[in-house]
């Protein structure tokens, strides 16, 4: 055993450091997952299925990560209709942002997470909006 004056780090500390490191990484990963996807528990919208037959998905709630493309129409009472690009795909979907989100300054090019409901006639309505 080394004298007190010439003691070095005990290997236990190295192990502890490694464990802590892994713990930090794991914690970060979990945090990232939780934070990066606010709708973690929701299912992503099956875009091909929606395009094929929206009625089959009527009433379901999904999540989508989009980039705002164009504002198609606007009504002060009903809300705003946007065309959005699905992240990672080449699909474009119309999403109706209800009037309760009118305070949001939604601009072209912005990325959002939408919690959407497939409504009547296949119209997608946003239930929640969060910026990516």
């Amino acid at each position, binding site marked *: *055993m*080394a*004298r*007190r*004056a*010439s*003691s*070095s*780090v005990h290997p236990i*500390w190295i192990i502890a*450091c490694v464990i*802590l*490191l892994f713990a*930090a*990484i794991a*914690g*970060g990963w979990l*945090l*990232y997952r*939780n*934070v*990066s996807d606010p709708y973690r528990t929701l299912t992503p919208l099956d875009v091909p299925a929606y395009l094929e037959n929206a009625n089959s998905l009527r009433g379901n709630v999904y999540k989508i990560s989009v980039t705002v*493309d*164009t*504002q*198609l129409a606007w009504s002060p009472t009903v809300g705003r209709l946007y065309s959005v690009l699905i992240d990672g795909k080449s699909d474009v979907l119309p999403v109706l942002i209800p009037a309760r989100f009118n305070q949001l*300054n939604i*601009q*072209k*090019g*912005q*990325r959002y997470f939408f919690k959407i409901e497939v409504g009547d006639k296949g119209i997608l309505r946003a239930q929640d909006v969060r*910026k*990516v």
Partner: protein
Amino acid sequence: MLELRNISLTAGRATDLLLDDISARFPQGHLCAVVGPSGCGKSTLLKVIAGVRQPQSGSVHWEGRDLEQHDLEPHEIGYVPQFSIAFDLLNVTESIETALRLRVGGLDESVLCERAVEILADVGLSEIADRRVRVLSGGQKRRLALALEMVSSPILLLCDEVTSGLDAKAEDEIVQLLRKLASAHEDEPARTVLSVTHSLRHLDSHDSVAVLFEGRLIYHGAPELLLHYFSLDKQEELFPSLARRSAGAWHASWQKHRAAYQAAFVNAEQIVARAEAEPVENVPAEEPWKPPEIPTRPVEFMCPHFSDQFKTLLKRRWRIFFRDGGQLALQLALLFGFPCLVVIFAWDGLPQIQNLTSSGNVVQQLLETAAFTLQSSRVASLVSGLVMFQVILLTLIGSNNAAREIAGERAIFEKEKFAGVRPSSYVLSKAVFLTTLVAAQSIWMAVFVNTICRFPGDMLAQSLILVLVNGAMTAVCLGISSLTKSAEHASLVCVYLVGFQLPLSGAVLALPHVIAWFTRPFIAAYWGWSGYLQTMRDTRFYDVVQSISQTELSPFALCGWVLLCHIAGGLLVAYLGAKTSRWD
């Protein structure tokens, strides 16, 4: 009694022997002068005895116990190194008091002060008690060093060239002091004092002289027998006479005569007989020699509590901080100057962004997109640049905060650690001290920039992230400081670390994904930049930065987590580094 048994120490290769089979005994109440030509291993021997160096073979025993197995307590051993072990900006009294607080626990304030006065009186520094260490003379510093070791009243005192560079009078005084320290008197027990010295003038004041030559002990005996043994007329001829024979011959010769000279420690007649040939001072009495009675120390010796050490260290650090004009000025300059640098680029605030319209024909949309891209790239560059500028400046500040923090006083810390200061207390005091600086710097940066430039976003969150990024860099640099050998080395590494922050952050140029995945977790600047931008999430600035930047932005919480991990890691490394002995 201190006993050295066949101590051998090599430098690196087996052939580079620093100490070669040294065996000796040093009783209590014994002052031994360890002499020899330069580089013969005197200081090394002391370090081996202190435990600073580990011998390849042999052992050191104290009172019959192997110190390898059961080392001396911090308060039992005192080691006065060659380097200064006091902070220049403290005065003598503060140094002593601090040392008392750090090494001796259970003392209330009055007792502590009293003790300090005693110690000062013992070492003869009472008259300059309020003088700063910086202005002390060499001899005074040696006295102070001795005084600092005396706070815990060690029974083994190792002095490494405490008289070097002193004039004759000062040397004489020191030797007398050592003599006094070695002898038991009043409440002070007898100590074993080993004093490495170059001077041969006061050998007679010592109980024994150990002569080392090329790592070998070639003589350990009474000073009066020295001349006889080496066939010298004068003590000053010792070193030149050593050249007559090789170290091995001398060692072999000593091996033959060692027993006799050691027995001389107990045979006064032989000593007297020898002294008839040459009068020798301090000839032991005719009785068979026996170790003098050593008054036992009070069993209760309290090591200071962790918190006491922490508080003392912290208090000392603040005191030094405020007394260091240069450092203070630098910190103020950084504190106020860097934010000014940032606001220069956005004095008029951030430009607003004209949004894209969704209507119009394709050509019009394309033109708008092009104009928007141009505009947004400008704004995004400005915003991102300002944020990153703040972050980088804060990392620079953090580096400046901590780079020299431990490395700059490592020797003193090692000494203090040797004397019983806990590394944890030490690191914690550093952490708290730096945290205060970090908080002030970062919060001021955030508030100042936010106020002047009207930066959008939550100021609290921005302050937090800046504190974290500054803290992360500070902690990491503190860790580096505790690992590196010198302050300059630490500064250099920290500067490089800061230098790599910007390019590896991805804020300016996106790193390849593979590299980014590997390096990004370690780049505090990225997390600070990303976290800061997340505070502007609800603004268009965030959008344009996100659209222009090829580096993805991480969530605020994750940024905070990573930075906290940096802080924790840095502090952990600092602690581990502090725990590691680094006497060089």
